[in-house]
């Protein structure tokens, strides 16, 4: 039995212009031309003459096209036709980011998509009816997802990718559905230019009077094969709405980056923060549409000197919100500013599957990730990142061995048997532990000893003592250590731990019992 296939075509017209509009939404309502500067050679015979640079329109949005602007014109000609024309240079990063954004938007609807080129994505919609609904609902979902990443798309749904693309290109509304089995009828009125045939083939068909896909589909297949060969048969299949190439599923490469070129140099952190915020907004929208968060960011600033300034900003908690990311970036750039004005900004994110922030119904509230990330960033700027975190014990005989880990409280609730009762202990003192206050670093002291027992510590008499406790470690290493610890009560009332380094003979005040 043949598998029933249904495809949606997500089409974003005038894609280079749409990529610019995605970065500057205000340009959507204005006539926009995307220009590319190329060198133009003067007329032949004038060797040695300088090469002039001419700005050519490579793409125009619908507003500009309505006023007669077309790709291939010079900028001057375009402005003559449309004095209100706004131009922007062609920036490849914009187009690349927009292509990835469109693919990710489609991937949020269906796991099987094909990259059909810039501004064109095919979506396999088989099986989506149960999740989303009928074909118009699927189409509306795709429109919504594309809009969420800043792109305006038209959707065509049909039994083949070719038919879906043709109806999407010709449709006036956002969603057009070709009923099953009606592909040939749905494509009949489309002009031949829709198929993007080779110029020779298109010219031959035009001479035969073939103007539409319906005309081409009506031609006898055997005659086409005889006169035009495999190219003719292929064109006939396309006119019938049949796909010639197999579906090639697209899998997302690890590319989570947004970039922005600047029209002027920026040497103020306040102004740069505004640009960073715009870039982060686009990046966060993409992450959110794929249900991802970022746990690390890389900022790359292009400098007027020609160099780059790159910073890695790690987030203590996966977030997908602009404000805490921006706070962290600004704090980092304040501490490590670029040494030249900035001409370009690129931010890439390390994506991670976001976890639920709050645990079970009975679990106490924890700091919200957004608040925690901000306060940790500000604390790190205040005390230094190395002085902030959760302590963790190290497996060592050294009594003060520990390391600092990034603060990340567990989401599971505390085990029931771990919770200490909040009440006075029994008189035999079974429940509460005596704490130490460490001297960091341990303070060297003058000790008078009777034998090995300390009798005075920094001229204070030892009233009571217990010890020694001997410990040693790392004997195989240059950091070998050997100590003798005593608990002593001094004449000023301090109850402390003193230790003698058995390798050097020096005495130290290690800690106070408190």
């Amino acid at each position, binding site marked *: 039995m043949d598998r029933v296939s249904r495809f949606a075509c997500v089409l974003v017209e005038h894609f280079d212009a749409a990529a610019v509009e995605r970065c500057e939404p205000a340009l959507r309502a204005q006539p926009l031309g995307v220009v590319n500067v190329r060198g133009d050679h003067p007329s032949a015979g004038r060797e040695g003459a300088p090469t002039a640079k001419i700005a050519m329109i490579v793409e125009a949005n619908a507003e500009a096209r309505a006023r007669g602007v077309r790709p291939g014109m010079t900028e001057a000609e375009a402005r003559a036709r449309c004095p209100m024309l706004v131009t922007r240079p062609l920036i490849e990063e914009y187009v690349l980011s927009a292509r990835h954004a469109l693919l990710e938007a489609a991937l949020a609807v269906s796991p099987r998509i094909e990259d059909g080129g810039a501004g064109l994505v095919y979506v396999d919609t088989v099986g989506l009816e149960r999740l989303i609904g009928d074909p118009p609902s699927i189409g509306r979902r795709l429109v919504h997802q594309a809009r969420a990443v800043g792109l305006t798309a038209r959707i065509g749904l049909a039994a083949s990718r070719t038919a879906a693309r043709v109806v999407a290109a010709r449709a006036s509304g956002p969603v057009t559905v070709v009923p099953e089995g009606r592909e040939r009828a749905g494509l009949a009125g489309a002009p031949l230019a829709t198929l993007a045939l080779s110029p020779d083939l298109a010219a031959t068909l035009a001479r035969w009077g073939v103007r539409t896909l319906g005309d081409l589909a009506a031609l006898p297949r055997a005659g086409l094969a005889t006169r035009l060969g495999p190219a003719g048969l292929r064109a006939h299949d396309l006119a019938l709405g049949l796909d010639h190439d197999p579906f090639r599923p697209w899998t997302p490469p690890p590319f989570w980056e947004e970039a922005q070129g600047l029209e002027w140099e920026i040497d103020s952190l306040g102004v740069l923060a505004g640009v960073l915020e715009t870039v982060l907004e686009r990046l966060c929208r993409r992450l959110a549409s794929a249900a991802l968060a970022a746990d690390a960011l890389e900022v790359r600033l292009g400098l007027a000197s020609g160099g780059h300034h790159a910073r890695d900003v790690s987030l203590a908690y996966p977030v997908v919100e602009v404000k805490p990311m921006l706070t962290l970036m600004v704090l980092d750039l304040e501490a490590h500013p670029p040494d030249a004005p900035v001409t370009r900004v690129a931010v890439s994110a390390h994506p991670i599957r976001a976890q639920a922030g709050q645990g079970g119904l009975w679990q*106490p*509230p*924890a*700091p*919200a990730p957004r*608040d*925690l990330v*901000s*306060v940790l960033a500000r*604390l790190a700027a*205040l*005390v230094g990142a190395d*002085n*902030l*975190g*959760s*302590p*963790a*014990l190290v497996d060592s005989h050294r*009594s*003060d061995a*520990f390391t*600092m*880990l990034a603060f*990340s*409280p*567990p989401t599971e*609730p*505390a085990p029931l048997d*771990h919770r*200490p009762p*909040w*009440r*006075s*202990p029994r*008189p035999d*003192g*079974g429940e*509460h*532990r*005596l*704490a*130490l*206050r*460490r*001297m*960091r670093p341990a303070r060297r002291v003058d000790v008078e000893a009777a034998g090995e027992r300390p009798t005075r510590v920094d001229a204070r008499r030892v009233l009571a*003592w*217990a*010890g020694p*406790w001997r410990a040693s470690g790392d004997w195989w290493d240059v950091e070998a250590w050997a100590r003798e610890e005593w*608990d002593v009560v001094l004449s000023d*009332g*301090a*109850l*402390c731990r003193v230790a003698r380094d058995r390798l050097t003979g020096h005495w130290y005040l290690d*800690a*106070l*019992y*408190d």
Partner: protein
Amino acid sequence: MGESVAPIRGEITEIVGRPSSGRTSYLLACLSHVVGQGETAALVDAEETFDPRSAAQAGIDLRRLLWVRCGSDRGVALRAADMLVRCPGFALVALDLGERVPRLPPTLSFRLKFAVQRTDVALLIVGRRRLTGSSAALAIETLREGIEWAGPGLVPTRLARVRTRTRVLRSRREEPGESLWWTA
């Protein structure tokens, strides 16, 4: 700590006392109670005297504790505590000022008090003497009463336990003091 002398949510509590009077042990007991309930706590350590091993022995889940080391800068410690009490979600923010407690203007004390009330966090300030004056809802003083030693022979070989007593210096309700044993 007893049921009567515990940090109050949304209020400032102060523990003061001489060295080796037990105030740090009270601090760890408060932290242990909070993180034992599955909540998160923060410790701003002005003198960097916190001992993770003592805390682990007191039953504190160190993963739920944020330790901020301030390098003996009291001003930095106060600013860090101010940031943390304004971050919703922490059940307890402890500020250990050690032996040298700075002077805090009354206006700053009130600001701290209002910030604590807004986020409903318990701010516990531990030091040699009091810091926030009338802004604290509860202030207690720790006093050492006795020491017990242990060992197999006539000469003790280890510290066994220490007995401390609390005296309520300030409270919004009648609070009796209490006496506790702390095991070394």
